[in-house]
């Protein structure tokens, strides 16, 4: 058994930041990650990192933009903390050596980005995330923080009180990929989940294949509810064949979208008369799909993003890697011709419910980064707001877990925060399958932390044994089924009948999952087992997204419903919560907090 003060699960931007901060506060930290840290998907972020650095800019403007972008579903305490601390974090990155793009006078450059009232997106070429990730990993190396790379965390060791509010997390169980051994990790102070996104729930996504929603699903099954899962951001400019992202930076620099008839449809069809291409992502994605559905798409599939008029010099200076991406993954030369783009799953606004310090309702369990939901992005994330989120909340959680925070959080968590029950007309059962379920264990219930951990390790060993020994179907078939139905039915445009269809398909996938088995008998680097376990998480996440989407009968931010074409503030200014307790699920709501430090945010119409 391994023992540390703090176990950080996941070593993307959020995990690394949390580990560094906890270490600075004197904790003995270990990073446990299924990929080597530099392989995390934070490295794929292109556009930039927002922070109000300029003297003319201010944090409350940034906070306001973020709240407006969230379509008033963000919680003010999180948004205020975020906007206030983002500048420090960006400067901190610079001091750690991050190679930001520079102005002539040697200061860091900032560019305009969609939904921002001031150019405050700091960037490093079109590979900001790569530099951010590597810069922070370098700092981890400098500090000698222990990294267990290629160790897959498959289970949290959480006590089993009936009320999740009373549970405690004592650590986690990790599967050492190279050897197939299962280890317990005892965390004296806490476990921080930073496992990133869940793009694998869909089949057209900008996310990595490793983005399988592990953290969300693990915390959820341990009792921490999922919040606002229906809000999935679809990025308007991804390459049609692979889902590779063409950064918003292209539009930030002046790139233009055209339909098949060479119309600049963002303006000509009035989707966003002021901001045009730079309107927020949900607006642009819907505009594109509407064009495509109206038959104005190119090959009925995509639209064109043109940056040729920017000139070779500017493109090479600021967007060089976009040229490589278009060339390598789509065979298109961006200097010569427009690039084909279409919307693709990009970011999960919802996630594990946490307060503004990243704490879940379970004692000792934290979540930060894309897998968490402090309700910063609400129903729609602004471009360039995720990277500062990793930094700000990573560092807040790191400080908190190391015991360096005195204040009480303002955002309530857990079932205690429930304001109202929810219900949907589900066509099938939700949650766990009734049979005893040997391949999907939950936590154990025992007295001492070590016992809890031991029991969880045992359960995990059993699960892996079962998967290895029995005969059954390939998980890939199940995963594909989920991805297909999600892409077809829970996409940008959502209709009741489709959502119900998706629930049926997911249920079917869940039942099929009872039959999965791993064909590879080896203990050495068995990725078959990992992917099989991941698929379980994909199913749970898919269900939560769909349930949320079916429940929320309004159109807000990224969530669009066919029959509910307006934002209904009277009824829906609340978070959708979806909780799991021993196989049974519960849908409920909790209020949105709009009273900020400086201002109370008044919901206004969101127009760009």
């Amino acid at each position, binding site marked *: 058994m391994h023992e540390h003060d703090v176990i950080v699960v996941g070593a993307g931007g959020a995990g690394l930041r949390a580990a560094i901060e906890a270490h600075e506060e004197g904790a003995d930290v270990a990073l446990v990650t299924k990929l080597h840290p530099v*392989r995390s998907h934070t490295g*794929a972020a292109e556009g930039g990192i927002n922070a109000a650095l300029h003297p003319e800019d201010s944090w409350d403007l940034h906070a306001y933009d973020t709240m407006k972008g969230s379509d008033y579903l963000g919680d003010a305490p999180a948004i205020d903390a975020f906007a206030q601390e983002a500048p420090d974090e960006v400067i901190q990155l610079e001091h750690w050596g991050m*190679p930001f793009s520079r102005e002539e006078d040697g200061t860091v450059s900032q560019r305009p980005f969609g939904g921002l009232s001031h150019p405050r997106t700091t960037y490093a070429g079109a*590979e900001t995330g790569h530099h951010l990730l590597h810069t922070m990993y*370098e700092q981890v190396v400098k500090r000698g923080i222990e990294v267990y790379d290629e160790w897959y965390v498959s289970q949290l060791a959480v006590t089993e009180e009936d009320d999740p509010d009373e549970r405690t997390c004592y650590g986690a169980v990790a599967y050492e990929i190279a050897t197939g051994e299962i280890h317990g990790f005892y965390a004296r102070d806490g476990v921080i989940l930073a496992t990133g996104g869940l793009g694998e729930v869909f089949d057209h996504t900008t996310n990595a294949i490793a983005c399988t929603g592990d953290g969300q699903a693990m915390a959820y099954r341990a009792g921490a509810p999922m919040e606002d899962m229906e809000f999935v951001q679809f990025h308007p400019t991804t390459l049609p064949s692979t889902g590779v992202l063409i950064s918003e930076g292209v539009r930030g620099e002046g790139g233009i979208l055209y339909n098949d008839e060479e119309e600049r449809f963002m303006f000509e069809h009035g989707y966003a008369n002021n901001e045009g291409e730079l309107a927020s992502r949900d607006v642009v994605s819907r505009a594109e799909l509407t064009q495509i559905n109206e038959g104005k798409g190119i090959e009925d599939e995509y639209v064109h993003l043109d940056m040729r008029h920017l000139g070779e010099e500017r493109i090479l200076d600021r967007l060089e890697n976009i040229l490589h991406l278009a060339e390598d993954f789509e065979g298109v030369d961006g200097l010569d011709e427009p690039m084909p783009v279409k919307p693709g799953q990009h970011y999960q606004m919802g996630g594990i419910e946490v307060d503004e310090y990243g704490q879940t309702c379970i004692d000792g369990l934290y979540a930060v980064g894309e897998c968490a939901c402090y309700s910063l992005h609400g129903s729609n994330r602004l471009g360039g707001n995720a990277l500062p989120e990793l930094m700000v909340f990573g560092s807040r959680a790191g400080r908190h877990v190391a015991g360096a925070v005195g204040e009480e959080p303002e955002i309530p968590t857990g079932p205690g925060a429930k304001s109202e029950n929810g219900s949907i007309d589900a066509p099938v059962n939700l949650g766990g399958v009734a049979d005893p379920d040997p391949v999907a264990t939950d936590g154990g219930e025992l007295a001492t932390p070590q016992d809890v951990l031991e029991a969880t390790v045992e359960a995990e060993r059993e699960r892996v044994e079962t998967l290895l020994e029995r005969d059954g179907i390939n998980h890939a078939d199940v995963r594909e089924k989920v991805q297909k139905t999600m892409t077809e039915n829970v996409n940008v445009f959502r209709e009741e009948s489709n959502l119900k269809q998706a629930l049926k398909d997911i249920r079917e996938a869940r039942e*099929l999952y009872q039959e999965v088995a791993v064909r590879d008998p080896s*203990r050495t680097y068995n*990725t078959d087992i990992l992917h099989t376990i991941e698929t379980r998480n994909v199913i749970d996440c898919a269900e939560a997204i769909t349930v949320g989407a079916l429940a929320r009968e309004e159109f807000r931010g990224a969530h669009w419903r066919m029959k509910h074409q307006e934002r209904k503030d009277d009824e829906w200014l609340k978070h959708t919560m979806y909780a799991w307790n021993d196989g049974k699920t519960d849908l409920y709501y909790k209020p949105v907090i709009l009273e900020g430090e400086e201002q109370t945010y008044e919901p206004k119409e969101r127009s760009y």
Partner: protein
Amino acid sequence: MSTQVTEQTETETEEQTEEQSPGERRREKKEQLQREREQEKSDLLDEAEETVELKIFRYDPEVPEKEEPRFDSFEVPFFEGMTVLDALIYARDTYDSSLTFRHSCRQAVCGSDALFINGKQRLGCKTQMVDLEWPIRIEPLPHQEVVKDLVVDMEHFYEQMHAVEPYFDPDELPDGEREEQRQTPENREKVKLSTRCIWCGACMSSCNVAAGDNQYLGPAAINKAYRFAMDEREGTDRKEDRLRIIEQEHGVWRCQTQFSCTEVCPKDIPLTEHIQELKREAVKSNLKFW
């Protein structure tokens, strides 16, 4: 949309399965799914105009049939824009789920899938099938120990990367609150290419010198040192220290300018150029001491 059609068939299956036990129902579903999948697979193979043969290196120290390294062939349908990684995933998900390789981002930023493809180190996700000669031979990176199938042990590579003290370490920081260090755009331009490394290990694998001398820092680590040594934000003292590290016994002098590192680097980093520049910097700094 085809929603309606699916819905109909769905209700049918549901009605007819109502009297069955859950176990039976599941088995039936499973068979049905398997039939569907098989149909789909053969449809895919038919639909694709061409198929490609992949010859993939297999090895597993624990599985008797795989203890002796061998090559397995897989027939994969070819679609336009298909990359080697796509083909590998297809082969794994369709034919043999024990086929093992690293992958994640699919867009050449995570550095997981550097492989030896048709005799050259390349990223699977960045290599278009049409650009290769068929059949395609896929092996793990040479000069590294194979853990299983296409997975090599990267530990040594990481150690070399860590050996050059790969972290920013300025002599001093600005005093002002929220004040950044200044760096000219020219200086950023100078280090820009070197900061692109994704730690894929392709360069190290291609270098004969690294193959012969396990302690050689290797092109990636030297490039990492270059990234910091040339960054004007770090002071001159630190730069001297960095030069001392790279001109050690197994440092830059080992490089025989074979250029293969530069040729295979998927991020187009001019590695040889950087190594050579460091050699000259080292000579210059030593001349100063004279």
